[in-house]
C-alpha cells in the first residue's frame, strides 16, 4: 500500500525579466550570463503577490482539478519556503482558510532552502499512509530574493506548487522516497538579513551534485530501477545546467528531462522548483508512465521520489485550471527599474 | 408646522486659507450672517453646525460647542450640535434647524457649515474625503473617491454617449461663473483643452474634473416665517425639503448612472413645495466631479436621463440660459470645504432670490434649488427657496 498524489496545481506570476536587462545595469554581459546558466528569463512576483498569495493560487489550482476532494478532508497543510512573508505566523494557516480546510486540521511552515516543499510531501505521505488523515497538502513556494549585482540575480525567481497527498483516489503513486541529508554550508541566510549568501563554486560538487547524485543512487537501489525504466526525470533546477549535468551523469537523456526543466523559461523558483517541474510533467503524463524526481535544498539535503502515474489521472480534470505551460507562456516582460521597484530593492521613505 | 425663512446669510472666502483656523472660519461666517440678519446674539436660540471631519482634519470633535464658544456665545449657553452626513452635512444641518423652528421648539437658529481641510497634506486630505465610501468593501480594495466617480462616468459614457468634452463643459461653465464670484476659490476662466489635458486622476477624470480641497465656512440665520419681517424686508422662505439615503457603496446601487437618492430627494422637495422641475430657474448642485453635475441635472429632472452632458455642452445650464446651474462657480470653482458647502449653496440661492448676485444675477429668479450629496450618493438633500410674501 502506498500513498501518492491525489491532485496537483502550480502557479507562476506573469512578469518576466531577461538576463540581458539585468546584466546591462551591472556592467555585465547579461546575455552571456543567461546562456551560461541556460536561463532565458525569470519570473518576478507583482507588488501584490507573495508566497502566501502564490501558495493559495497553487492550492486552488490543485483543488479545481479535483472537485471531488472535500477540503475539510485535508487534515494537514505544510508550506515550505525560504521567503515566507512572516517569520512568525505561518503561511499554512492562510492557505487553510483560503481553501476552506480550516479549522479542523494541523498546519505548519517548513524551511529547508529549496527542498522545503518536498519535505512537506514526505511528511504528508507519512500522515496519510498511517491513516491519521485522509489527505495532506504539501506546498512549495518562493519569491526568492537575490542581492543586487550577484550572480543569483539571473536565476532567483518566483513560483509555487501544491500537491494533495493521500491514498485514494491517487493519480500517481509514490512508490519509494529516500533522502540524503548532511550539514553542508553551501548557501544560507542569517535571520534579519535581506539577501542570502553562498559559497560560490562550493555550491556545485560538494553540495548540489553530492546530494542529488547520492540520493538518486539510493533511489535506484531502493526501487530496483535503472534510468531507462523512466519516462520522465526532474531534478532541482537552480539553473538550466546543473540538473542536466546531474541527469546525464545518472544516465538520463534530454528527452526524459525536457518537460520538467522549466528553469530555462521561469528561473529557479526555489522551494517551488522541482515541484512546478513535476506539475508540468503531470499535466501531460499518461497512466503507467514513471517519473524519477530528486530535489535539493542547500544546507543540505535531497529528497528523491519514484513515481508511477495511475489510471486515476484520467479522472482528473487537468484542463480545469491553467496548466503549467499556459502559465509559463503567459508573460509580461519588465525592465530592471520596475523589477527593482517590485522586489523592494529601492529604499523607500519610512512612515 | 410653521413656515421657515432665511433672514441672514454670511460666508468666508473659500480657498487655501493658511492664516485662518477652523475657529476663525466658523465665527467669521456666523458673525456675518448675524449682522446680515440684524439680530443680536441674545436672539439666537440654537446653533447647528455642518462639518464632515474635523476629527480627522484637525483632531477636533465637539465643534459646534467650540464655534459657539469662539463666537463669544458661551454665555448664552446655546444648544449646539454638529451634523454629519458626508458632503451633505451642511444641507442636513439646515434641515434639522428648519425642523426645530417649524415644530415650534425654537424661533431663530443659526446654521453654520465649516471645514478646514488644508492643515493636513493633500494625500491625507484625499484619504479623509474617502472615508464616506464603504471602508470594508470599496476603499480597502483600492477604490478612491475619484475612482468611484470615474467608474460612474465611464458607465454614463457607455450607456448614454456622454463624452469627455461634455464633462469638460461643466468645469468650463463653472469657472466662468466663479470668475464673477469674489468669494470663489478660483476666479479664473479655464478652457476645455485645459480640462482635457490636465493630469489624469482616475480615467476619464482629470485634475480639472475634480473639485479642489478647500477651507471655508458659510452661515444662515433661520427664523420662523411669522416673525421674519421683524428683522428683514427680504425674507427668503424655505418652501420644500427632500432628504433621502441610499446604498452607500456604488456597486450596490440600482443604476450606476443615476443617484436614486437625488431623484427621491428632488421629488420630495418639489412635492412639499407643490412645484415642478420646470419652475426652477436657478440651482446650486453638487458638482464635486464634473460627472456629478451631469447626473444631478438629470436626476433632478431638469433634463432627461442621459442628456445631461448634451444639455451642458449646448449651454442649457449657463447663467441665464434655460436653467442657471451653479452660478456661484459650484464646488469646482467656488471651492468645496465639505461641511460649508450645503450652507454656501443656500447663501448663493438666497442672494439670487434677493437680487443681490451682482454680475451673476439670474434675472427674474423666483424659485431656487440647492442639491447636496453625501459620499458617492448615499445621501442627497434638496432644498427649495422662494421669495417670501
Amino acid at each position: 500500500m502506498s500513498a501518492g498524489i491525489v491532485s496537483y496545481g502550480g502557479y507562476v506570476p506573469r512578469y518576466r525579466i531577461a538576463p540581458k536587462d539585468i546584466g546591462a545595469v551591472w556592467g555585465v554581459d547579461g546575455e552571456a550570463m543567461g546562456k551560461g546558466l541556460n536561463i532565458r528569463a525569470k519570473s518576478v512576483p507583482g507588488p501584490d503577490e507573495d508566497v502566501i498569495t502564490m501558495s493559495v493560487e497553487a492550492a486552488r489550482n490543485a483543488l479545481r482539478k479535483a472537485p471531488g476532494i472535500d477540503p475539510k478532508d485535508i487534515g494537514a497543510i505544510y508550506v515550505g519556503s525560504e521567503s515566507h512573508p512572516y517569520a512568525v505566523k505561518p503561511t499554512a494557516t492562510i492557505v487553510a482558510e483560503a481553501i476552506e480546510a480550516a479549522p479542523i486540521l494541523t498546519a505548519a511552515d517548513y524551511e529547508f532552502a529549496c527542498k522545503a516543499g518536498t519535505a512537506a510531501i514526505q511528511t504528508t505521505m507519512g500522515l496519510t499512509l498511517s491513516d491519521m488523515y485522509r489527505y495532506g497538502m504539501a506546498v512549495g513556494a518562493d519569491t526568492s530574493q537575490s542581492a543586487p549585482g550577484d550572480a543569483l540575480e539571473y536565476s532567483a525567481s518566483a513560483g509555487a506548487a501544491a500537491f494533495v497527498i493521500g491514498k485514494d483516489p491517487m493519480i500517481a503513486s509514490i512508490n519509494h522516497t529516500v533522502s540524503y541529508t548532511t550539514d553542508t554550508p553551501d548557501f544560507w541566510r542569517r535571520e534579519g538579513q535581506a539577501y542570502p549568501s553562498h559559497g560560490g563554486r562550493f555550491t556545485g560538487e560538494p553540495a548540489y551534485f553530492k546530494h542529488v547524485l547520492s540520493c538518486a543512487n539510493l533511489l535506484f537501489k531502493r526501487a530496483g530501477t535503472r534510468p531507462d525504466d523512466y519516462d520522465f526525470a526532474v531534478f532541482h533546477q537552480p539553473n538550466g545546467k546543473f540538473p542536466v549535468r546531474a541527469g546525464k551523469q545518472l544516465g538520463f537523456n534530454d528527452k526524459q528531462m525536457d518537460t520538467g526543466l522549466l528553469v530555462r523559461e521561469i528561473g529557479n523558483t526555489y522551494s517551488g522548483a522541482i515541484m512546478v517541474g513535476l506539475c508540468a510533467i503531470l499535466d501531460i503524463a499518461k497512466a503507467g508512465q514513471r517519473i524519477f524526481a530528486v530535489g535539493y535544498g542547500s544546507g543540505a539535503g535531497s529528497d528523491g521520489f519514484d513515481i508511477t502515474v495511475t489510471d486515476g489521472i484520467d479522472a482528473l480534470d487537468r484542463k480545469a485550471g491553467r496548466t503549467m505551460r499556459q502559465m509559463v507562456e503567459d508573460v509580461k516582460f519588465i525592465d530592471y527599474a520596475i523589477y527593482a521597484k517590485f522586489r523592494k530593492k529601492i529604499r523607500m521613505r519610512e512612515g | 408646522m410653521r413656515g421657515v425663512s432665511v433672514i441672514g446669510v454670511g460666508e468666508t472666502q473659500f480657498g487655501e486659507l493658511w492664516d485662518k483656523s477652523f475657529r476663525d472660519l466658523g465665527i467669521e461666517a456666523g458673525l456675518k450672517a448675524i449682522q446680515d440678519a440684524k439680530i443680536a446674539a441674545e436672539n439666537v436660540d440654537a446653533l447647528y453646525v455642518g462639518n464632515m471631519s474635523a476629527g480627522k482634519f484637525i483632531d477636533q470633535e465637539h465643534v459646534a460647542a467650540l464655534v459657539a464658544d469662539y463666537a463669544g456665545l458661551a454665555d448664552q449657553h446655546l444648544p449646539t450640535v454638529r451634523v454629519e452626513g458626508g458632503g451633505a452635512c451642511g444641507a442636513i444641518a439646515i434641515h434639522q434647524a428648519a425642523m426645530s423652528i417649524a415644530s415650534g421648539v425654537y424661533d431663530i437658529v443659526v446654521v453654520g457649515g465649516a471645514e478646514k481641510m488644508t492643515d493636513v497634506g493633500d494625500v491625507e486630505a484625499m484619504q479623509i474625503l474617502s472615508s464616506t465610501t464603504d471602508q470594508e468593501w470599496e476603499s480597502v480594495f483600492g477604490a478612491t473617491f475619484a475612482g468611484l466617480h470615474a467608474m460612474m462616468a465611464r458607465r454614463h459614457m457607455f450607456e448614454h454617449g456622454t463624452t469627455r468634452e461634455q464633462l469638460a463643459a461643466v468645469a468650463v461653465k463653472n469657472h466662468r461663473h466663479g470668475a464673477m464670484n469674489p468669494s470663489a476659490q478660483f476666479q479664473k476662466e479655464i478652457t476645455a483643452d485645459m480640462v482635457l489635458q490636465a493630469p489624469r486622476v482616475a480615467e476619464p477624470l482629470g485634475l480639472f474634473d475634480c473639485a479642489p480641497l478647500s477651507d471655508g465656512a458659510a452661515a444662515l440665520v433661520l427664523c420662523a416665517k411669522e416673525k421674519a419681517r421683524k428683522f428683514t424686508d427680504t425674507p427668503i422662505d424655505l418652501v420644500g425639503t427632500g432628504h433621502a439615503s441610499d446604498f452607500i457603496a456604488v456597486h450596490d446601487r440600482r443604476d450606476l448612472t443615476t443617484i436614486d437618492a437625488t431623484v427621491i430627494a428632488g421629488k420630495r422637495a418639489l412635492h412639499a413645495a407643490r412645484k415642478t422641475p420646470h419652475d426652477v430657474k436657478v440651482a446650486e448642485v453638487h458638482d464635486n466631479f464634473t460627472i456629478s453635475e451631469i447626473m444631478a441635472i438629470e436626476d433632478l429632472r431638469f433634463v432627461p436621463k442621459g442628456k445631461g452632458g448634451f444639455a451642458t455642452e449646448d449651454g442649457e445650464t449657463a447663467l441665464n440660459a434655460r436653467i442657471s446651474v451653479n452660478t456661484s462657480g459650484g464646488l469646482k470653482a467656488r471651492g468645496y470645504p465639505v461641511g460649508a458647502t450645503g450652507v454656501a449653496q443656500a447663501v448663493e440661492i438666497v442672494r439670487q432670490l434677493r437680487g443681490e448676485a451682482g454680475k451673476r444675477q439670474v434675472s427674474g429668479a423666483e424659485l431656487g434649488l440647492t442639491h447636496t450629496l453625501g459620499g458617492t450618493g448615499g445621501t442627497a438633500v434638496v432644498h427649495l427657496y422662494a421669495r417670501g410674501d
Partner: protein
Amino acid sequence: MAIPRFWREISSRYNFIGSKCGSCGALDFPPRAVCPRCGRRSVGKMERLKLGGRGKVVTFTIVHDAPKAFDMMKPYVLAIVELDEGLRVTSQVIDVDPAEVKIGMPVESAFRKLGEEGEAGIIHYGYKFRPAF
C-alpha cells in the same frame, strides 16, 4: 486597518461567502443580517452562501492618483464586477494591460495582497480579478 476589523471579514474576502435570504431567496455580498428587500421578516433567516467569484466587468477606471497604501500598484485598474450570481463588487483587475480592459470582459477571482500595516504589521489579503480562464 485594525486587526479584528480585518479578521472578521476573512471568510468573505478570501472565499466570497455571502448570504441568502431565507425569506425571499435573494443573495447579498457581503453577508447581511437583514435582507434589504424583506426587512424584519428576514432576521434570523439569513443563510451563508459561497459565491463563485466569476463575473464580468460592468465599469472600470484606471486610478493614477492613489493613497500611499497603493503607491506600488499605480496606475491600477479599479472595476465594478458583476458576479455570475447577479451581485456586484468593487476591486482591482490585475494580470492585464489596462488598455485591454473593456466593459463586459469576463473575469475570475484571484487571491492577492490588499495592503499591509507597514513593514512590521499584518498583511491583508482578499479578492482581485483577472481575465477569466
